């Protein structure tokens, strides 16, 4: 029998002493394994849909492109005009899926657990923007990309969702959470590792 505890994150094979983390000059990178991720799709101009989600999660979905909203412990990233990714604590994704499915039984929407389809690489420290700019074509100047901003973009040759979760003014900031498909995580990890060192 498999031990249910023997779960493996996307970067488990990169762990040193059980931790997937690297530090370099003015930046560090770590895997945030098993963060709950749920794709929600629905009609943003349907006020009932928005109200139902608010009722279920106490969260207003962000409607402005490339932004996010948060009501701890859940945050929502805008991925498209009718698509969001809900982020929640490890292990709580099933509860989020269940409560949304129950609330959204009527009407047209979809809720899909993608917690294992992606992992999160957390990049933090003063050099974060420069490190991202080695592989990301977006304008990441604080005037153009700030706390809470979200983008679907590419870093090197990997599709990612980029989410800034702390400012430069914060301790150890700025912080970026990079969502990457599980099978691309190893590539992206080695990419960042090369740059940080």
């Amino acid at each position, binding site marked *: *029998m*498999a*031990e*249910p505890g*023997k*779960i*493996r*994150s*996307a970067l488990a*094979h990169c762990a040193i002493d059980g931790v997937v983390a690297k530090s370099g000059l003015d930046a560090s990178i770590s895997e945030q394994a*098993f963060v709950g991720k749920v*794709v929600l*799709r629905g009609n943003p101009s349907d006020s009932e849909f928005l109200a139902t989600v608010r009722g279920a999660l106490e969260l207003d979905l962000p409607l402005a492109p490339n932004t996010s909203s948060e009501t701890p412990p859940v945050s929502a990233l805008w991925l498209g005009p*009718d698509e969001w990714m809900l982020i929640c604590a490890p292990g709580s994704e099933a509860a989020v899926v269940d409560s949304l499915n129950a609330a959204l039984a009527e009407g*047209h*929407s*979809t809720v*899909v*657990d*993608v*917690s*294992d*389809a*992606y992992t999160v690489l957390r990049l933090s420290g003063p050099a974060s923007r*420069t490190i991202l*700019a*080695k*592989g*990301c*074509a*977006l*304008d990441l*100047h604080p*005037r*153009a990309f700030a706390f809470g901003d979200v983008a679907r973009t590419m870093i*090197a*040759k*990997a599709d990612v969702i980029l989410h800034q979760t702390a400012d430069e003014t914060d301790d150890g900031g700025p912080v970026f959470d990079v969502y990457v*498909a*599980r*099978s*691309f995580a*190893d*590539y*992206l990890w*080695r*990419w960042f590792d*090369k*740059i940080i060192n």
Partner: protein
Amino acid sequence: MKRQRFRLPSGGRIDRGDARAFSFNGRRYYGFSGDTLASALLANGVHFVGRSFKYHRPRGVLGSGAEEPNALVQLGAGARTDPNMRATTTELFDGLRAASQNCWPTLRFDIGGINDRLSGLLPAGFYYKTFMQPARLWKLYEKFIRRAAGLGRAPTERDPDRYDQQYAHCDVLVVGAGPAGLAAALAAGRTGARVFVVDEQAEFGGTMLAESGRHIRIRDTSPDAWREDTIAALEDMSDVTVLPRTTAFGYYTHNFIGMLERLTDHLPRAEAGNQARQRLWKLRAKEVVLATGSIERPLVFAENDRPGILLAGAAREFVNRYAVAPGTRAVVFTNNDSAYAAALDMAAAGVAVEAVIDLRTEVEGDLPRLAREAGIPVLQGYAVVATSGRHRVTGVTVMRLNDAGDGVSGTARKLRCDCVAVSGGWNPAVHLFSQSRGKLNFQSEMNIFVPGESVQAARSAGACNGSFSLAECLKEGADAGLAAARVAGFEGADAATLAAIEPADGPQRSLWRVPSERKDARMFVDFQNDVTTKDLDLAVREGYRSIEHVKRYTTTGMGTDQGKTGNVNALAIVAGSLGAEIPAVGVTTFRAPYTPVTFGAIAGRHVGGLFDPVRGTPMHEWHVQCGAKFEDVGQWKRAWYYPREGETMRQAVDREVRAARESVGILDYSTLGKIDIRGPDAAAFLNRVYTNAWTKLGVGRCRYGLMLRDDGMVMDDGVTLRLGENHFLMTTTTGNAASVLSWLEEWLQTEWPELQVYCTSVTEQYATISICGPNARALLGAVAPEMRLGGDVFPHMSMQEGMVAGVAARVLRVSFTGEIGFEINVPARHGRAVWDALIEAGAPHGITSYGTEAMHVLRAEKGFVIAGQESDGTVTPIDLGMDWIVNWTKGDFIGRRSLNRSDTAREDRKQLVGLFTADPQTVLDEGSQIVERVSEAPPMDMIGHVTSSYYSPNLGRSIALAMIRSGRGRLGETLYAPMPDGPIEVTVTSPVFFDPEGTRLNG
């Protein structure tokens, strides 16, 4: 310390306290920090540095910067060697090693120099004319041409250096940090805009660095003081990025600029350490200010290519910036005032200036007046008609010009000299502007091309805009910088105009070819490619009219310098021969890069293990540990087969195939594309994208589907599972996972927005483990004791959810092998643990992991097709013998109409069949062509090709699938696969080789 004979005792921007040893062609020399390789060579009296491309003529340093066509050297050695490096832009460092190119055995004694004697036999188009016939000898010619072609040598070893890349964005990019660029950057920076200012040189200042400072002032101070103040101010601005040693080499669409920053090229190896060697910047600018300066053009006169003959501006820069005397006795030859500054500066440095030879009869400017006052002889209305000297110029012959400027008369005077400083005027450096697709205007007063209307958000300022005076440069630069910042959304006050004091210039006289009394004298137009006026004349005589054709025929303006010095002279000469005006002839395209860019910088970090993403499944480590050989499927690494100690591939695959048929095999199927499809119209949507019907599929049941493109050709296939009334899970082939999702989205978004359906990729959410074989059910039962697995409750093509090895799983009973099979899907994090549990539980059955090769054999034995292997974009379901999956009654589906086209409906299309070779041990090559009759030699009428071919251990013989014209009507026919070793005889069979009744599936 070795003496540097031509080093001036004082002045210059070099550090005499920091001597640097270097070697050139194996000899050791010394220079100083601040030198370029060219200035250090000249300081040691070395003018003769290379051999020309075609005639192998001795050549010396012509320029002092990026325009240099002659002084191209091989730098470094071993893995760290670079060909075609311009000595004029190579910063000197301790231990630098350089060597001449295009000469053998030595620079001074060069066998290839024979080409010069044979030059009459090597006219323009020589290769085209000589090596055309006979065609069969081309392979022989090519060897020699390749050996003769090119200049330097590419390194043969792996590049040991690292290269960085960086994206950047700014409001204003200023290219060039001469007076115009510095003024622009300062004006833009003061508004608070994000500014990048880049310059190819180590030091900012552009032409100001070549100034003596004696004749010009800015705002009552020396130009250098202003320069330093401005740089300091820019460096203090937090949103201004100052990049020296950075060449903006390419201007692409939407103000995207490619820039190469050289980080360690100027350092000895030990100091470079672990830094990246170069950085490629990919910059997007809202506004661009081009302040790229100008490039001096040589005069085209008889024998104008000897070492020691250089551009006047370069001579001046060597004297003032590098404190190097370009010779001991100089002659200056010019058609404009600027060269008089060179005469004055050389004279001030102690060089004996024999005379200034001026093509003009009237010479009125400030600088000529100062030269006369300094006692420099000026010969007005004279021309240099010949030069002498083999490895170094030793003298010039001058004669009086006639009034028209097309002939010379009177007595020839010989002047002895070891240096000739030449100026034919200045060409604005419009390369980047032209790359941006901006059109050039011809300005006839100075015979220059200047930027016309901008096509992109760019403006030109200073010399690159045809404004050569310092005052104009400063004003245009400041205006352009401020205007650019304002357009980018920033506010700034107009700055006061900077006062500049400088000499006033008189008009110039353009004589595109300086007459000589010797009609056979060679006059070089393009030094790098050895193009003379005669070559251009020949091209015109032979009927070439377009300047682009003349360029290709004569090679003028090609090569690494792209005609920086020669182009305007060349097209003016062609215009003269054609009797046309210069603007009517036009200019050739300015191509990126402005100066060469290393492949390393372009590759950046995308090398080695980071060349392309390598995607692994949640069980990837297991496959690695078990010694799997991997196959690339897109970016995925899929286990191909698992050889045991001493096994060949064939033995391993045979073993894996047998195990799957005889006991139980296990396959990692996680790479299959998976798409969650949900919405009230989900079933209707599937009806439209698949050829078969989906409405009546029960919840918890699976169905195989075939997807066509709108042209009726097979695109993808897979099993789709109904999870709920409005909820499906589609699988796609591994390679098409992303493109099928895009395809579905395209139809939903553009054609059927009325359908209420959402598609979400869940490919990577699940680890998918496929087990099959007679013992598969027993194995699953061992790890999933709570599941009911009997054929009555868990029939083929159905699904159950339950615990497998302690993990909540979705299990599909499906088969791609013809055996009883189960596909176990668990969240990816559990994949490895469940896999391990199955391997452990399967041990009593001798569970065997099999790879993609065995999977291919197993499915081929059953005649199951693979989309993309049997089909190639020209194959319909009917061609594949899959009429059964096309439902003509359910309504429209993508590709339906196309299946009725006369071509797709015709009888003699290629159809899927099986092939048996006459010798059962012969395995056909996939891709082999099939013919009815074998001829002695091609061509033969090819009626089809082999799509899949394997050895089948279960049948004990080879099997093949093939697409054959009217194949289904040919069962039993004998055909042939013609191969280099002789034709292989084959018999057409059914494509189902094994268990055609499908009894094993339900066994």
